[in-house]
């Protein structure tokens, strides 16, 4: 196993404690922000943290779940690896939801947890849990450090693994004795692990075969996902679509890879995606999946998905190829590398007639759905119109963050984004409570960009304590609470599929504005349409965090919809008439 040393690394040897070694290792990895919450087993690390105020900024959250979601939001907008700290026992277990969310959405994170002293392992000591065992299925890698000497090498590996290949969360559990012990510290970045090959060798035969299919296709269709953003391949993707003239649709996590108003952008895929984007999957003759994983929300019933088409899958994770759909030509590699190789071999072309079919189908969706969402005539306000008004003000120069539920679907459909990494949402796991802390992390990561959170009354209450963290850091997050007093998405399903039996979906909510003000955050509630525009302007002009609560019409439903088990051709545009 050969190691390459970088000329940038400064292999200085210093005698120091394990805890301080953690700080030095983080600094060496270019970390400048940590989200966390202290506790007994991680105290030595927190003590060492105080010696590095210029290099390391720590944001104190109010729950460890808040810390890990904030680290995710930070990672999503900056492209850096998010870092969070938690103590042993309940501190570590409180991270589990966020770690799971990160592995589902391929977000690079390094989570450092304190652990009881090595001699106490397995004895049910105070606040001891088997963090390695618990986080095994939800991490890309994890490791328990029991000796200080292990710290530099393991942390270097942790950062290498979290960020490379298909990114993901890594948990490093550090026993307290290792934090206290002194040793000779020397840092060296990890450049190679023999059992791990994050950068596959590209098979040029596959690229040539794919180019051939693309050049011959009459109705080619691209499905673009987060892989493009994770690979920093937005420019390469843009060049590819513009050269080939192929219409592209995006998965919810791929939303901001291209500006929404690009002429070849035909909309969002998925259960609540755009009408034409969904139905055309079953009409194309060539389907090109780029940096996406054919999630069940995108495919609908797999046995009736794109059966008529040949499928090319450009993907970095070999286990994803042929996992859900049978792929005709896989291009195994990082799209940053493979897209230019493919672009060089495809002919300049356009598919204007095929593209026009999408635009024609869009008209139906506009009539039945979009018109009513964005310009409602009923007195009750809709989520769509609120989003639209905000779009008009920020004009794509903002980072949008969402929680989970109906509002998330409306936001992904209607938020106008121009720049990459400007849409942050919980995709694969759909974690309610993600929004508020993730927006906090996003603002910390992008302090000069407007960060606007859309959240529902259900989701906000799941992590509402993070108002305290936001007040302490004064991160100027603009929080738009779309309050319909219900667990909206579940209520919609109960309306459509369970005969309007609203079992446990009505929420008796607090006075959110009072709660926010109790936490030191300015807030205002809007109950009528005429108040909206001015309220939005006030929120955006305000220098500091701000909560804008909007009362939303109770039975505002998200359409179109591909019900579970249905084919993507069976998109519903409106509720069935009784």
């Amino acid at each position, binding site marked *: *196993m050969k190691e*390459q040393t970088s000329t940038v690394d400064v292999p200085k040897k210093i005698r120091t404690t394990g805890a301080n070694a953690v700080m030095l290792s983080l600094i060496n990895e270019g970390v400048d922000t940590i989200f966390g919450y202290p506790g007994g087993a991680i105290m030595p690390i927190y003590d060492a943290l105080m010696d590095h105020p210029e290099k390391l900024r720590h944001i104190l959250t109010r729950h460890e779940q808040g810390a890990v979601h904030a680290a995710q939001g930070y990672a999503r907008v900056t492209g850096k690896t998010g870092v969070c700290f938690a103590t042993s026992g309940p501190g570590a277990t409180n991270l589990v939801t966020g770690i799971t969310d990160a592995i589902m959405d391929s977000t690079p994170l390094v989570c450092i947890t304190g652990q009881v002293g090595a001699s106490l392992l397995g004895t049910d000591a105070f606040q001891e849990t088997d963090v*390695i065992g618990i986080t095994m299925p939800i991490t890309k*890698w994890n490791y*328990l450090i029991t000796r200080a000497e292990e710290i530099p090498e393991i942390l270097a590996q942790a950062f290498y693994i979290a960020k490379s290949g298909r990114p993901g969360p890594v948990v490093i559990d550090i026993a307290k004795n290792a934090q206290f012990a002194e040793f000779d510290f020397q840092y060296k970045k990890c450049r190679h692990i023999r*059992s791990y*090959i994050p950068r596959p060798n590209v098979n040029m035969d596959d690229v040539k075969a794919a180019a051939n299919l693309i050049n011959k296709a009459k109705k080619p269709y691209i499905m673009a996902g987060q892989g493009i953003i994770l690979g920093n391949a937005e420019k390469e993707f843009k060049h590819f679509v513009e050269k080939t003239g192929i219409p592209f649709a995006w998965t919810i996590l791929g939303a901001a890879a291209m500006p929404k108003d690009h002429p070849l952008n035909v909309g969002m895929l998925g259960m609540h995606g755009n009408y034409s984007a969904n139905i055309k999957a079953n009409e194309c003759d060539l389907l090109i999946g780029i940096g996406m994983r054919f999630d069940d929300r995108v495919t609908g019933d797999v046995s009736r998905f794109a059966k008529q088409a040949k499928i090319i899958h450009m993907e970095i994770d*070999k286990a994803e190829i042929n*996992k859900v759909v049978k792929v005709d030509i896989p291009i195994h590699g990082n799209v940053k590398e493979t897209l230019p190789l493919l672009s060089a071999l495809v002919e300049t072309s356009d598919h204007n007639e095929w593209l026009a079919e999408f635009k024609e189908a869009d008209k139906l969706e506009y009539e039945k759905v979009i018109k009513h969402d964005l310009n409602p005539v009923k007195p009750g306000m809709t989520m769509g119109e609120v989003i639209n008004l905000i779009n008009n003000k920020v004009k794509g120069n903002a980072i949008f963050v969402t929680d989970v539920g109906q509002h998330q679907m409306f936001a992904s459909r209607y938020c106008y984004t121009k720049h990459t990494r400007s849409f942050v949402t919980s995709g694969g796991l759909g974690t309610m409570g993600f929004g508020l802390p993730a927006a906090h992390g996003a603002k910390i990561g992008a302090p000069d960009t407007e960060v606007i959170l859309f959240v529902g009354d259900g989701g906000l209450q799941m992590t509402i304590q993070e108002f305290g963290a936001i007040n302490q850091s004064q991160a100027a997050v603009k929080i738009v609470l779309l309050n319909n007093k219900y667990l909206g998405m579940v209520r919609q399903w109960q309306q459509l599929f369970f005969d309007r039996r609203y079992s446990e979906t009505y929420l008796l909510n607090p006075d959110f504005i009072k709660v926010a003000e109790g936490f030191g955050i300015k807030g205002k509630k809007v109950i009528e349409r005429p108040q909206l525009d001015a309220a939005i302007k006030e929120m955006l002009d305000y220098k500091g965090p701000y909560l804008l609560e909007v009362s939303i019409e109770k039975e505002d439903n998200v359409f179109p919809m591909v019900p579970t088990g249905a084919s993507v051709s069976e998109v519903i545009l409106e509720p069935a008439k009784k």
Partner: protein
Amino acid sequence: MAKTNNRRVTTPAENNGKQTFTISAFSENHIGLLNRITIIFTRRHVNIESLTVSGSAIPGIHKFTIVVNETLEKVEKVVSQIDKLVEVLKAFYHTEEEIIHQEIALYKVPTAALISSNSIEETVRKHNARIMEVTSEYTVIEKTGHKEETQNLFDELYRYGLLQFTRSGRIAITKSSTEAFAEYLKEIESNIND
């Protein structure tokens, strides 16, 4: 040593598409890796018929041999998820025809039963087993072979009052003349991708 067993192997078609696969995974010798690998089976609700872990021919590299009864499709997906693990160097799967495999079984019978008639001695000879240890109370018999063969011996010895029985997991080597894994290791060590 008997080369084949006489029991008819059920074809996949008869077994709703399922057949016996032997999965081999080569990994670094690190704590907790066994857990990481078995979680992949648990997650997909696949039962592990047998599992053997021990050092491979190459120092520092561990080998896992896992036997399952599943469809080809599922096995392919499980193996690619094992292969994906950071500390797994490579994972393969093989059908019964592609490997040579063995397991070992130990049987403890009362020595009294051994003395009172010739039958046990004949059985042992017929099954190509061997007597490992004899005490005044018990005798330990050992047999290597395929699962059906060790099972047959079990069924016979059971009649004499089997005191204790244990069988190991399967170990297997492929029928090809080159060791695919050794080739792979050479390739990755000369080919450092950053």
